[in-house]
């Protein structure tokens, strides 16, 4: 479908207005919202992630693409609801208790949303109870971020609290942030570690498929 190809290209190139126009044109032309989402937006963001990981584009360009995707998605959303298109999963994301950094967390949330996931943004300085409530409200994945060595330990406390609440089997937990490593993620009992926003998208897909 030429229009879907053009939509994908508009998102990859970061042309928000064009992406919105292509979504509107597609809907008016009778293309299903689900098709525009999967073959247009999600596929475009997958391409963007790949280009980033291959060093072909840098973070600012990735974000410009994400902005185009978000703009197009906002037009598409009501139609997705009408069609009953389910999200790929529900991700509750937040910066761990005691930590006020939000940029990295926001970036991951944006990339995940562009990849078809429903995002519950819990914000910064998130206590374990909020993650627990989000799981009770249907989150399949909890994504925790920390930028400080003093606050990353609260990730472990949150995971233990989730276990104590009897919810550990219902959720996949992923972690990230500057001081976090794969071995630390393993040590605290997380299901995965992502070093950047692009790999976080791949990781969520992997942990949900596991």
């Amino acid at each position, binding site marked *: 479908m030429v229009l879907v190809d053009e939509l994908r290209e508009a998102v990859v190139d*970061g042309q928000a207005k064009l992406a919105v126009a292509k979504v509107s044109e597609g809907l008016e032309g009778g293309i299903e919202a689900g098709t525009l989402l999967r073959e247009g937006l999600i596929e475009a963001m997958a391409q963007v992630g790949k280009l980033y990981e291959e060093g072909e*584009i*840098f*973070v*600012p*360009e990735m*974000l*410009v693409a*994400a*902005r185009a995707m978000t703009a197009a998605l906002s037009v598409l959303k009501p139609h997705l609801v009408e069609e009953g298109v389910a999200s790929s999963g529900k991700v509750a994301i937040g910066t761990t*208790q*005691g*930590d*006020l*950094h*939000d*940029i990295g967390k*926001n*970036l991951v949330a*944006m990339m995940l949303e562009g990849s078809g996931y429903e995002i519950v943004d819990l914000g910064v300085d998130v206590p374990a109870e909020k993650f627990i409530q989000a799981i009770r409200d249907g989150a399949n994945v909890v994504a925790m971020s920390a930028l*400080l*060595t*003093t*606050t990353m330990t*609260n990730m472990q406390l949150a995971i233990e609290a989730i276990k104590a609440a009897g919810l550990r089997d219902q959720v996949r937990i992923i972690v990230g942030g*500057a*001081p976090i*490593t794969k071995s630390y993620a393993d040590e605290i009992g997380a299901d995965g570690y992502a070093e950047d926003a692009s790999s976080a998208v791949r990781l969520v897909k992997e942990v949900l498929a596991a």
Partner: protein
Amino acid sequence: MIRDFDLRPDADMVLRALGADPEVVRRRRSSALDIAEQAVAKGMGLLAPVVVSASFPVEEFRHERLRLEHGHLSGPLIAEHLHTARSVVVAMCTIGPALEDAASECFSEDPAMSLALDAFGSVAVDLLGTAMCQRVDEQADAEGLRTTVPLSPGLVGWPVANGQRQIFELVDVASAGIRLTEGYMMVPKKSTSMVIGIGPDVEHAGESCDYCSMAATCRYREEHISHHG
């Protein structure tokens, strides 16, 4: 409290802080360059650099603990670098909250600009630290003394919690609008704290980056403009 700093972060510095190679970005005529340039233009007016510093004579060094006039510094890193210091300069540097507020506010509408402003802030506070270190070096040099590398809480051998507690006990920074959260995070976020040892026999060994727990994986290390030298 010192405010007369002339910070000049440029677009290339912002791009490097974003993990991008300025040469590649320019060659491709990437939109990232426009974003970095706009962040510089917008960010310059939001900088409010302030350094609060104080100098403390060393009263005693014993068992990895440096006793100062109004407090102490302790830990393996402190012992390694400051055991021969005659005095210690403690400095807290911040560019103020306006820039990070602007970065957070514009995320939903323009995430690329938000991230570029955040990177601009990181560069600016790093330049501020560098400028402060130069002043301390010049002063020490004029007195025929030497300085150590700047040491910041969080480097290997000086845990964040211990270091920040010790520094905040020594210097009153409330008037500069700096505070410490329960998680030992400085607010405004674009702030840094450090100590520099001064004396005739101190050694300026290596770079601060050598003592960072993220030295092995830090992707900014090579390109990084910093006061770490």
